[in-house]
């Protein structure tokens, strides 16, 4: 039985197969978090606030979002080896988890598409600026670079997910160094005083709302890691080993790279947060190579983790797990990305904001439900057969669906939409300026879930009780 056998399938990971130490967890979380999407979001931040406030708000917001998603996903992942889809069996039911599968596939394919298209576009523009290509906006060049990155990702994962343990830290360390070079360049080229004094591009009249919109951007970005966290931490040796590196990789480092996009957009608004082009124009070819290396490594590293998580999610379907090899699952996970890149790259990127909103609105309430279920109701004890055995009745509830979970997620989504218009980012309530949107949405979902589980008949009882601990007593003897 190889390590990859269970790592590639819908099976629990045993102690002997948990080989990731702090460096591997940090490397893969950082490698996943740092990508050129940080520049896009950092560019949005510049519309609302200045550099000082923006830096604090976006880093703090990201950490809060990561706190919510880690609290929901990390403990069950490190204890039971579950990834996102399987982890929602207790909250949504054995069939209700199909909803999570759909959501996770949409989110992961969406993120992977964004990264691939962005790498194609930025790569083509950078190569044109360096004189390698004649037309940086050529759709052929964008598609060719994007397809090449897809091939690299599939090739890296071809021999199994164990590659991540070594590749993640190497990519993360290189990308962090390159990001530091970009930050230093910004400071030298423009000076800190100019960066700090630059006004926000198009702020709203109310300063508190501007501040909280940036915090919400950070929280939504942090919560959006939920589909990745199970896959990234289930190989960790223990729970505590995974916490610090995950906070550092997914939260702090991502927040710092977001500030590069913020600073770039403030001093050169036309860059929209992407500093690579004006770095080449003002710094020459060597900076172009730095920028290109950053884009390739950062985006390929993140896409690699995304495709791994996507393939793992697919293999939670028993029929898929039986009939599809790991390599087949990897190729199928990449296929939709290739189709988006070749046929609808432009329209897809035009609706990037809507996609981001969709992810933020739905994932926050799911996190709230999972936190309430795992900590308040089940006291960190799940039934292993209920999670992995298709014939178990433990999490079957009403025909395979847990109504409490769906009601709570719907309540959370309704709360989010009533507090903030997620597409246009227009607040719908004064509460937004003090609470953000994801925090009340997650909280409402958690409260509704707890109440519903205790009031709807046939949900409490054997299905809720911690599983038989006789096995643990046996071990302790």
């Amino acid at each position, binding site marked *: 039985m190889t390590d990859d056998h269970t790592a590639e399938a819908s099976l629990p990971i045993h102690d002997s197969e948990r080989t990731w130490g702090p460096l591997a967890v940090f490397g893969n979380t950082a490698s996943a978090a740092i990508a050129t999407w940080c520049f896009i979001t950092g560019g949005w931040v510049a519309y609302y606030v200045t550099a000082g406030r923006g830096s604090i708000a976006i880093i703090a917001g990201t950490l809060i979002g990561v706190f919510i998603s880690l609290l929901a996903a990390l403990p069950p992942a490190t*204890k039971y080896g579950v990834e996102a889809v399987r982890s929602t069996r207790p909250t949504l039911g054995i069939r209700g988890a199909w909803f999570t599968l759909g959501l996770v596939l949409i989110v992961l394919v969406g993120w992977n598409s964004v990264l691939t298209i962005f790498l194609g576009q930025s790569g083509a523009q950078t190569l044109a600026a360096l004189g390698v290509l004649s037309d940086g906006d050529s759709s052929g060049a964008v598609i060719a670079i994007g397809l090449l990155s897809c091939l690299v990702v599939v090739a890296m994962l071809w021999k199994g997910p164990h590659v991540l343990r070594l590749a993640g830290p190497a990519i993360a360390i290189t990308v962090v160094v390159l990001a530091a070079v970009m930050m230093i360049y910004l400071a030298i080229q423009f000076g800190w005083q100019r960066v700090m004094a630059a006004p926000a591009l198009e702020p709203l009249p109310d300063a508190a709302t501007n501040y909280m919109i940036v915090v919400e951007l950070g929280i939504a970005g942090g919560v959006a890691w939920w589909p990745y966290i199970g896959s990234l931490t289930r190989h960790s040796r223990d729970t505590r080993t995974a916490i610090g590196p995950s906070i550092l990789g997914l939260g702090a480092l991502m927040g710092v790279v977001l500030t590069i996009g913020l600073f770039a957009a403030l001093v050169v608004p036309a860059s929209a947060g992407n500093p690579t082009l004006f770095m080449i124009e003002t710094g020459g070819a060597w900076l172009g190579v730095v920028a290109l290396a950053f884009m390739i490594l950062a985006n390929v590293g993140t896409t690699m983790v995304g495709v791994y998580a996507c393939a793992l999610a697919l293999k939670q379907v028993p029929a898929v797990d039986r009939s599809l090899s790991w390599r087949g699952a990897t190729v199928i996970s990449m296929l939709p990305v290739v189709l988006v890149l070749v046929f609808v790259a432009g329209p897809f990127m035009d609706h990037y904001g809507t996609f981001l909103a969709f992810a933020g609105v739905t994932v926050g309430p799911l996190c709230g439900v999972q936190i309430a279920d795992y900590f308040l109701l089940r006291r960190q004890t799940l039934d292993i057969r209920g999670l992995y055995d298709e014939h178990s009745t433990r999490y079957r509830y009403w025909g395979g669906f847990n109504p409490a979970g769906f009601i709570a997620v719907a309540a959370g989504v309704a709360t989010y939409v009533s507090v903030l218009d997620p597409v246009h980012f227009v607040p719908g309530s004064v509460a937004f300026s003090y609470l953000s949107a994801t925090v009340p949405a997650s909280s409402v979902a958690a409260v509704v879930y707890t109440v519903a589980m205790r009031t709807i008949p046939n949900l409490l009882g054997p299905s809720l009780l911690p599983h038989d601990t006789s096995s643990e007593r046996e071990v302790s003897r």
Partner: protein
Amino acid sequence: MDEERETLIADFDRLHRGDSLDRAGFLTLLTWGLIVPVVALLIGWVWLA
């Protein structure tokens, strides 16, 4: 494969001693994920006003 799967699940159920999130781990998460960011937000709001 089904037998192999059954064995894996049974072994995990019988032997695995996966740890829960303990107090120290929770405090680490709470401190760096919530308390420090919220304090930073308040300082940022007041100090940079």
